[in-house]
């Protein structure tokens, strides 16, 4: 206990002395969030929209305002012919054109299902899909408020395609993924490097000559990084709440538990890497391959797991971020209660225990 405490104190002193690294560990994650968050955010807002209103009725004007007020669309032109629409789209001056037919207002009043047309520049299939998603939901919303009641609101002539985020808030959907990714970087890298550095300078040998077991050493060594990673996670989440309106619908304790389990697994991975790597460079590369890439590519963060080839889907089962993402999205976005997330929590626990046990065994063996 006293020995673990000595290691713990020493580790903190080293970290605190190395201000730059500490700042990187704590603030760069939040900075990453800002960077990615805004980059992703910007892309889906302020879509340049041209409007061809052939009806020019109160109803049609209300629909146009609904588009503009959504803040997803900025009206850049009012046009009067299909030729103009084509020109604007080709010149990339507009990314979408809303065409409202002559009888729109009358159809709405008569309860006949009216149709509007949205033309979209399909260069970028992803953006196009997103734009269709926005337009569809705005038109539906407008239909409801115009008619006051169902059944048939205005329908778009385009077939709505899959859009996985009915709230139109893809940033929010991505934030949990970013948190996982960023935590993986700080936790894995900081632990792995802190031990490999000691190997490089030779202090670890001096410590091994002391009668201190592997367990107190590992505990004393990793708790500071655990606390730092947790702080960093808290900062990211608070930043996401303040800047992107990330909700917190679930329980804070559940969130703490999910974060802790995930970080413990990441620390274990870092320790394990440090037992195999002799230089910081090797450790860094090992972390890239075993942690960052899978978290980025195979967790469902960017690419949905269901659309992956079968072989890759199997690999995702050993990527802890896969479970963490489900848990985090559930807790934060949907307020899912903990017991419904039991499988994910179990998976995270197993991963963390397995990594820590493997790392301890390897560290103990290396000592001989």
């Amino acid at each position, binding site marked *: 206990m*006293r*020995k673990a*405490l*000595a*290691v713990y*104190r*020493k580790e903190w*002193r*080293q970290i605190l*002395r*190395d201000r730059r690294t500490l700042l990187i560990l704590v603030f760069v994650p939040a900075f990453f969030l800002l960077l990615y968050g805004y980059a992703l955010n910007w892309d889906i807002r302020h879509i340049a929209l041209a409007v061809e209103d052939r009806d020019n009725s109160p109803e049609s004007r209300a629909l146009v305002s609904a588009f503009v007020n959504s803040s997803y669309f900025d009206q850049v032109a009012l046009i009067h012919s299909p030729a103009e629409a084509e020109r604007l789209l080709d010149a990339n001056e507009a990314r979408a054109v809303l065409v409202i037919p002559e009888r729109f207002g009358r159809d709405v009043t008569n309860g006949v299902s009216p149709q509007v047309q949205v033309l979209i520049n399909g260069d970028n299939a992803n953006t196009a899909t997103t734009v269709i998603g926005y337009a569809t939901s705005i038109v539906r919303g407008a239909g409801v408020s115009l008619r006051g009641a169902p059944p048939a609101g205005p329908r778009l002539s385009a077939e709505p395609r899959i859009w996985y985020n009915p709230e139109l808030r893809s940033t929010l959907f991505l934030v949990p993924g970013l948190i996982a990714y960023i935590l993986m970087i700080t936790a894995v890298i900081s632990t792995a490097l802190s031990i490999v550095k000691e190997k490089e*300078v*030779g*202090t670890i*040998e*001096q*410590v*091994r*000559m*002391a*009668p*201190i*077991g592997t367990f107190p050493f590992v505990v004393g060594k990793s708790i500071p990084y655990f606390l730092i990673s947790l702080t960093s996670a808290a900062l990211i989440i608070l930043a996401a709440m303040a800047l992107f309106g990330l909700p917190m619908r679930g329980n804070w304790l559940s969130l703490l538990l999910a974060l802790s389990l995930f970080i413990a697994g990441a620390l274990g991975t870092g320790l394990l890497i440090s037992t195999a790597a002799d230089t910081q460079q090797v450790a860094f590369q090992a972390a890239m391959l075993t942690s960052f890439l899978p978290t980025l590519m195979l967790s469902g963060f960017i690419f949905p797991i269901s659309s992956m080839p079968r072989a890759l889907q199997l690999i995702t089962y050993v990527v802890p971020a896969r479970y963490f993402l489900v848990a985090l999205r559930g807790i934060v976005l949907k307020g899912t209660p903990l017991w419904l997330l039991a499988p994910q929590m179990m998976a995270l626990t197993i991963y963390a225990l397995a990594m820590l046990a493997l790392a301890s065994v390897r560290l103990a063996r290396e*000592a*001989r």
Partner: protein
Amino acid sequence: MDKNRNAIEVRRLTRRFGGFVAVSDVSFDVREGEIFGFLGSNGAGKSTTIRMLCGLLAPTSGHATVGGVDVTRDPEGVKRRIGYMSQRFSLYELLTVDQNIRFFGGIYGLDDARLAERRRFVIDMAGLAGREQTLARDLAGGWRQRLALGCAILHEPRILFLDEPTGGVDPLSRRHFWRLIDTLSQSGVTVLVTTHYLDEAERCHRVALIHAGKLAAIGTTTEVKQIFSGRPILEIRTDRPVDAMRILDATSGVEKTSLFGTALHVVLRGRDVTPERLVSPLRAQGIAVESVAEVAPSLEDVFLEVIDRAGGTAA
């Protein structure tokens, strides 16, 4: 302290790394309170031997006891009894002198009262008073070295392993350091120290020469020099030592020659070879001989002899 008891006993200790034998069948004893020097060139197997004796590395075969504890059976027990200073005097660069002491005291399990007392002792011993808050990385070589020694003896071990403790340190600090080792030895601490500075070996009570993993000679420095008994060594100074070596090597009665700085050491096969017989062929070739004198064998002579007998070359 009992000068007749062994602090360290090593029997046929061997360590392989794959197919490579780093330490081969090494046996020796170190008595309590002795300063025992472990000499050998780089890669000879000194550090590997020490690591086995400290319980850090398991021997491939053979055994050893340190302070009466078997290193294979109870490596943790060994660790509690010994102090160890690695060849890089590894301190935490980003910690202060004081924090380094607290850390090492902590991992040796010292309680607060004992730590405070030992801390004072170490600061005094290392001459670090007033520098307690200096970062280790800002200390000059000699202080770093003495701080590393201090950290290694915080828990008052009876046996101390020092692996090349004087590498890269100025001569004055080296002398200071050896005085500290003498003091420790007088208080009964057994010291096993490796070095490749042969002048330091003269300060050891006994030395062991290790070459290519094998123990080549052991004893007091006087004893190991007996390897030359009956074969005098002449030191010859000339203006063209390299040419002189070639000529002397071809002269009967000369066993071998080696260059020591600007002088030549010539090992003779026996007492019957007179200096005149060596000098005349040199003069005949126009080489000016400044001086010829019989010298006592130095440890370096012994070292080269040992390497020659092993059929190898110095690294």
